[in-house]
């Protein structure tokens, strides 16, 4: 009888959570998403973390390839010295990598990816157990889309979809254009939505802080997103709702 009670509690708890997630997913997935699952390359030297991130990504309906080092990630992408791509016409929609790894850090991996012509447009997200402002800034300046403080939550992963709405060919062109504008300090592009997206998607309590202060590669896109209507002035001003800007050090 006790076992039944506990079993039911476990099952209901687990299933209820799952149902909620499924409901959320069902609401979010567009026709296009359903047709082609986005492919995420996850890089983490920790066995446990790799398993968890893989699961988080799978639950969020991504296709996942998980590797244990920056070296292997480069091999997979065909960016290593041997230039050996694993799959012809490899499509990677997002790369999520741990920062602290032996050999090559996530930051070094980020740099290599941004230096490559084939993959520089792929959004890269950094994960770290340490919430160090200088580290976050450095990564964002190098072109990372986001910086997630571990432990990674489902809400963090669900947010990744935002960085991938640029699968659309038409948006890709604009993004390249805007990115170049953003890198040039003398011009101010019409919209930088990333700070906006940070302030409106407050599902994760660990959303990166300093995103609003350095925006070298903030992507435009999201023309369909309602958030664009409240796009803040460019440069370094914080987003309207400043809760995401509160330093959490």
């Amino acid at each position, binding site marked *: 009888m006790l076992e039944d009670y506990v079993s039911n509690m*476990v099952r209901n*708890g687990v299933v209820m959570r799952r149902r909620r997630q499924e409901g959320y997913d069902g609401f979010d997935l567009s026709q296009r998403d359903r047709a082609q699952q986005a492919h995420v390359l996850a890089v983490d030297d920790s066995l446990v*973390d790799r398993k968890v991130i893989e*699961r988080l990504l799978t639950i969020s309906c991504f296709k996942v390839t998980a590797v244990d080092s920056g070296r292997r990630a480069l091999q997979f992408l065909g960016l290593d010295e041997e230039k050996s791509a694993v799959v012809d016409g490899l499509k990677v929609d997002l790369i999520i990598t741990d920062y602290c790894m032996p050999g090559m850090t996530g930051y070094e991996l980020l740099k290599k990816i941004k230096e490559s012509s084939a993959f520089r447009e792929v959004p890269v997200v950094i994960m770290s*157990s340490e919430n160090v402002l200088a580290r976050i800034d450095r990564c964002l300046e190098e072109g990372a889309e986001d910086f997630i403080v571990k432990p990674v939550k489902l809400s963090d992963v669900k947010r990744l979809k935002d960085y991938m709405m640029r699968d659309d060919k038409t948006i890709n062109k604009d993004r390249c254009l805007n990115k170049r504008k953003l890198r040039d300090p003398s011009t101010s592009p019409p919209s930088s939505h990333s700070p906006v997206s940070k302030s409106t998607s407050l599902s994760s309590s660990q959303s990166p802080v300093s995103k609003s202060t350095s925006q070298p590669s903030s992507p435009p896109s999201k023309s369909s997103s309602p958030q664009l209507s409240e796009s803040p002035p460019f440069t370094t001003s914080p987003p309207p709702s400043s809760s995401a800007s509160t330093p959490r050090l």
Partner: protein
Amino acid sequence: MDGGLDLLQKQLVDYVASLFNEFNQIQSLQDESNPDFVVEVVSLFFEDSEKLLNELAKSLDQQDVDFKKVDAHVHQLKGSSSSIGAQRVQNACATFRHYCDEKNIEGCLTCLQQVRNEYFLVKGKLEILLKVTKQSTSRHSYSQLHS
């Protein structure tokens, strides 16, 4: 039924429930399509942690302790405990890292003991969690819950 037994049962149920709360992040990642996730990730955690604890003991036993290496191991352990939801191990690791920074061998040894204790405590809890999880997945079919 006997009142005392009821109380004990309630306490046990509450305790088990608290375990689920503590590790609910990991729990929530399991579902019918991945019924072994909790077992797998917890087993990985056990393997990984015990290997790290052994490495730590070895490293601290050297003539010339390589504090950088020790710190790297503690960092790893801290990371995986955080991912699993083992808060106390994580906290003990944080303290450990301070002593590594200070290159304080005595402090490190004390911390290793602390971390070890916390680890075995959480291991016990996780083992109970695994047992109960296994029982509930084997006794019922998930389809029953959807009816």
